[in-house]
């Protein structure tokens, strides 16, 4: 009987083994470390920020409103608790891993996909940048730089999942990290500045927005397949999930949804081409070709991606990164270093303005008059002098400022862009 059992077991395994292999190749598991798995350990061990008063303070701690206030004992105690330390330990471990696979399936889950890793990445960023601030304030610049750089790596990993929303959210993480480290640049010793410059240069390239946007095509296919196989109740629910309101869902469901979806196919098929256009041409194409078709289709209004906003977000992120690199170089070598940092959105270098305890750099990239993208290096105690800030950032209550980019872009500047 033993022999029979063995043969039977072998037979069953022989049938089952292809499934196992297909699900997760053992060789891939063994040979390819996945940063996402380590990040999830960091997320799981991270103390909650939401429900505690201290947590809410931490959420605010890296904002430009509070960055001029030193990290106090209450915040430091939060950082020193084992859960925080372990979480940040895992962040550093994950940041060393190149490959990051979050295991999302946009084609299968479509619009119902959840992005818990993005939410958690934003919380982990807050914890990490708070500790970076504590390090900088106590002269531990190397450790502070490690926290900042690994937060930027976290952003790039989080934005590599092929989802436009994740990539946009990752830009915000990255820019906040840049904002924090810039605030401490003037007091950083030369060797730390050298290290920071080196590490910034070594960062992997962020995901490309045009490629990420191309994945939006999956959403239309997902919706059509789900809608076709759904009963009326489920169809209404799908429409509700798509529109965000019961009334709009009923209106949409009463139409020939599949016909509307089919009409959108050529437009979705054109996403890769549209999203790879230079920004000024994209704006023209959006206005003349895309928007009329999208607005005339009730389904298109809620399903077609915000290509222009996404590409603008990418442009701003690029500008911020270049500003940070330039600011580090200015802190190392003085304002003369700017000649090596041309503003890609202007005719010359970034604009430089010094103040007591720091300096500000400004790009020509602006989307509204007097609203350029800028970066302040240094902390300016107290409220910002409205007249003292280039670009008219009147009323900003803090020392670090990042300029808004409203959607109504100035054509003159857009034309200068080569992205």
């Amino acid at each position, binding site marked *: 009987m033993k*022999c*029979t059992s063995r*043969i*039977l077991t072998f*037979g*069953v395994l022989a*049938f089952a083994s292809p499934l196992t292999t297909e699900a997760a190749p053992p060789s891939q598991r063994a040979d390819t470390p996945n940063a996402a798995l380590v990040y999830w350990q960091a997320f799981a061990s991270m103390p909650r*920020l*939401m429900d505690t008063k201290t947590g*809410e303070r931490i*959420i*605010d701690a*890296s*904002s*430009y*409103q509070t960055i001029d206030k030193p990290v106090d004992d209450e915040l430091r105690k939060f950082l020193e608790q084992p859960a925080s330390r372990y979480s940040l330990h895992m962040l550093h471990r994950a940041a060393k891993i190149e490959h990051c696979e979050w295991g999302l399936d*946009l084609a299968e*889950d*479509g*619009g*119902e*996909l*959840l*992005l*818990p890793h993005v*939410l958690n990445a*934003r919380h982990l960023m*807050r914890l990490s940048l708070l500790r970076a601030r504590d390090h900088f304030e106590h002269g531990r610049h190397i450790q502070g730089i490690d926290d900042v750089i690994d937060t930027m790596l976290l952003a790039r990993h989080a934005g590599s999942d092929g*989802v436009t*929303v994740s990539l*946009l*959210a990752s*830009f915000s993480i990255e*820019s*906040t990290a840049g*904002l924090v480290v810039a605030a401490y640049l003037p007091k950083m010793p030369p060797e730390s500045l050298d290290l920071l410059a080196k590490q910034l240069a070594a960062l992997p390239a962020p995901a490309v927005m045009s490629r990420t946007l191309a994945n939006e095509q999956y959403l239309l296919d997902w919706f059509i*397949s*789900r809608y076709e*196989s759904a009963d009326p109740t*489920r169809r209404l629910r799908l429409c*509700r*999930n*798509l*529109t*965000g*309101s019961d009334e709009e869902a009923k209106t949409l469901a009463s139409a020939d949804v599949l016909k509307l979806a089919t009409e959108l196919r050529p437009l979705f098929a054109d996403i890769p081409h549209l999203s790879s256009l230079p920004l000024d041409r994209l704006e023209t194409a959006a206005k003349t070709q895309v928007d009329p078709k999208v607005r005339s289709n009730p389904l298109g209004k*809620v399903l077609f991606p*915000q290509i222009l*906003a996404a590409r*603008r*977000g990418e442009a*701003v992120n690029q500008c*911020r990164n270049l500003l940070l690199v330039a600011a580090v170089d200015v802190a190392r070598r003085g304002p003369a270093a700017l000649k090596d940092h041309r503003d890609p959105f202007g005719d010359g270098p970034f604009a430089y303005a010094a103040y007591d305890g720091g300096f500000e750099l400004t790009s020509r990239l602006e989307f509204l008059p007097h609203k350029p993208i800028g970066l302040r290096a240094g902390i300016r105690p107290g409220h910002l002098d409205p007249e003292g800030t280039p670009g008219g950032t009147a009323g*900003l209550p803090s020392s*670090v400022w*990042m300029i*808004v980019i*409203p*959607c109504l*872009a100035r054509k003159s500047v857009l034309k200068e862009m080569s992205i």
Partner: protein
Amino acid sequence: MNNNQQDPSHPAVSDELSKTLRRSVERIVAEPVPGEAVRRSVERYLEIDRLPAQKRRQRKWLALAAGLAAAALLTVCWMGRTIDRAPIESPVQEVLGPPAKDDAPDQIPSLQACRLALRDSPEAMLALLDRGAGHPLMAESCWLTSVQPERSGGPDH
């Protein structure tokens, strides 16, 4: 205590019976056993030993065949199910939709909810991601374009 002691009135009968029995037994013992009978007995014994082994082998083959058939059947069923199955309804579809304003703070917004929020403004999208905290980083809130600047209401607008 023997029968003689129990029935001392019949010693002659008892002696006669003993003699007769002894003779019979001696005759039987003295009679040679036929070789054919011995061979038959041995073969019978071996046959008895062989029969269960054959049955066991038959059972093994039957079990193996049945097992393989079951495995094949399971595989066919599984493959058919994979190919033909209807799209799986998300078990959490009720919570995946674009959230109402009074939704629980810990609810994770769906991708479509984030996309809809992005239609309003990037700040709205980030706020949705941070829902519950109510404190999207102000620095971040300025990081991107605002489709409707007047909605954001931040100092930069």
